[in-house]
């Protein structure tokens, strides 16, 4: 009789102690837990591909602590590469602890020896953020940072809901020369979109807002792709991308964005050199 009670008490005691340690909370403090999580994710996303350390190839920059988990600035930059075969054509973005960790794949112009991109992401919990660069010849290199920040996925939209929906799809382009590089320009692309991820509540009704986000962005320059993104729910409201592209003598920069409701938004600008400065030409 006592023995049985004793076992029950033991069982209760242990279940109480350990059940509260959900993976999320545990991974916030344990590197071991993060590694285990990544092993699982790596297997699911990349299967048996060998991913090498990105040191000397790709650098990821994130704040150590998210200023606001719904808008976490992140950027990556590759080192200058000599061999054409080592040029980076794709960069995969993985946010380990987000509801949908595989957050996107960026593609770039194939003739760039150095890639730079900046955007803003949402973080649901303290997490590793990873960028995995894929080269022309099929090598993979990873850079990863741990970022403290949580609640960014359920965070309410910034601004007025109706306004946001009415303005969805507005696009703005900014360009400028990159210092000391005649042939490279920097583009900043802003797309107005609420990016509802299905995890936010509507203030009026308290019901969850249905997911409504951009899953594909394509930027072409003179009809050649210079940046494209297949993405998921982790890109922040009003997606913004800053990246480099080979500029030449000028031409048409065109953006096309698609959201999961089937809307296609596009916008283009004519770029021209004026006094050695790349400008948006007045039409």
């Amino acid at each position, binding site marked *: 009789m*006592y023995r049985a009670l004793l076992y029950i008490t033991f069982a209760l005691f242990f279940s109480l102690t350990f059940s509260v340690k959900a993976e999320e909370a545990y991974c916030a403090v344990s590197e071991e837990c993060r590694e285990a999580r990544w092993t699982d994710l790596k297997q699911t996303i990349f299967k048996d591909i060998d991913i090498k350390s990105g040191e000397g190839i790709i650098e990821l920059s994130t704040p150590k602590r998210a200023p606001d988990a719904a808008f976490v*600035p992140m950027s990556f930059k590759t080192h200058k590469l000599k061999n054409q075969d080592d040029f980076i054509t794709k960069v995969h973005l993985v946010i380990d602890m987000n509801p949908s960790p595989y957050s996107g794949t960026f593609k770039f112009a194939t003739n760039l020896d150095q890639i730079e991109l900046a955007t803003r992401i949402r973080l649901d919990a303290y997490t590793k953020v990873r960028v995995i660069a894929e080269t022309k010849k099929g090598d993979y290199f990873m850079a990863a940072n741990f970022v403290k920040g949580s609640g960014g996925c359920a965070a309410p939209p910034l601004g007025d809901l109706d306004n946001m929906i009415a303005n969805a799809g507005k696009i703005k382009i900014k360009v400028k020369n990159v210092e000391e590089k005649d042939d490279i320009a920097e583009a900043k692309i802003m797309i107005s979109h609420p990016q509802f991820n299905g995890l936010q509540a509507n203030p009026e009704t308290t019901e969850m807002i249905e997911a409504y986000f951009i899953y594909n962005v394509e930027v072409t320059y003179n009809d050649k792709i210079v940046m494209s993104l297949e993405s998921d729910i982790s890109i922040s409201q009003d997606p913004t991308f800053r990246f480099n592209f080979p500029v030449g003598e000028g031409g048409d920069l065109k953006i096309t964005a698609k959201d999961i409701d089937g809307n296609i938004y596009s916008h283009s600008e004519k770029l021209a050199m004026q006094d050695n400065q790349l400008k948006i030409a007045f039409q």
Partner: protein
Amino acid sequence: MKEIKTIKFFFIFILFFLLSPLIIAENKIKPLDVKKIADGVYVHYGKHENFYEKEDNIGDIANLGFIIGDDSIAVIDTGGSHQVGESLKLAIKKVSKKPIKYVINTHGHQDHVFGNSAFLSEGVTIYGHYSLKKFLQERGSQYIRQITQAGDKVKGTSLIFPHKVIAEISPDQVKKLSDEMTIDLGNRKLLLTSHATAHTYSDATVLDLKTKTFFVGDLVQDERTPTMDGLVKNWIKVLNEIEKIDFKIMVPGHGKIQKDNTALEKTKTYLQVLYDDVIDGLKKDIPAEKVIETAAQSEKDKWVLFNRVNPGNVVRTFMRYEWEY
């Protein structure tokens, strides 16, 4: 026989272990320290810590207050958890046996409203800005998650919406006649005002007309870095209006009580510098991550927790005005 005795002893030992957190938790609720700042007006000062972050932080970070009239008591903000609310209730009961009839929330942030639940058993009516309910609904899923993540130390904390809005509504309940209203605690009237979007879009102030004690919530902050969760420009505008109000003692949402507009001016200066620096960054097309490092840095030494609060203010301000430049 001996074996059973040992097991029995062991069993009691384990049981004690199991119950000990509950026993300790029960004992933890002690009345909050409160200070009398005017006749019938009391304030509890919150600690300048990060919300729920340290193990012993149960959300006691905001200034809370209560005002005692001839007939009843009004509570202004209830703290960052059910536990803080309970402790505040104990503190009030130590001072006065009069019924607690009103709770007024100065805005919808966690550290000011999460203690509301502790006062429901008193049969209080909770007042808040006319947009407070919307604000709390919007934050609902995020806030509840935060409470769950904090675990046992804030057990029982829940989101309680205001029962009544701070506004004068037409008899047919359709039109808002004014953003102001008064409540009477018995020979003591409080003027409640809902403000336009500033610190948040749910900011309200409480002016005790008897002692001219002015509870301004986080519209004015002293010591702790203000959190910008509304609109910078509007906030400055609202401060310009509040500045004209005649008061004897101002109780900011965080930091020390004020005899004049020093803290108000300090808050305003921070906001102006924040706004100017972010707009300057936008005009020069400097990326957000760089603007975070530089914006409002000249204000750094004037505030506590600056490095934790300022970056978020910069990002949110940057996002708001990004399309205009």
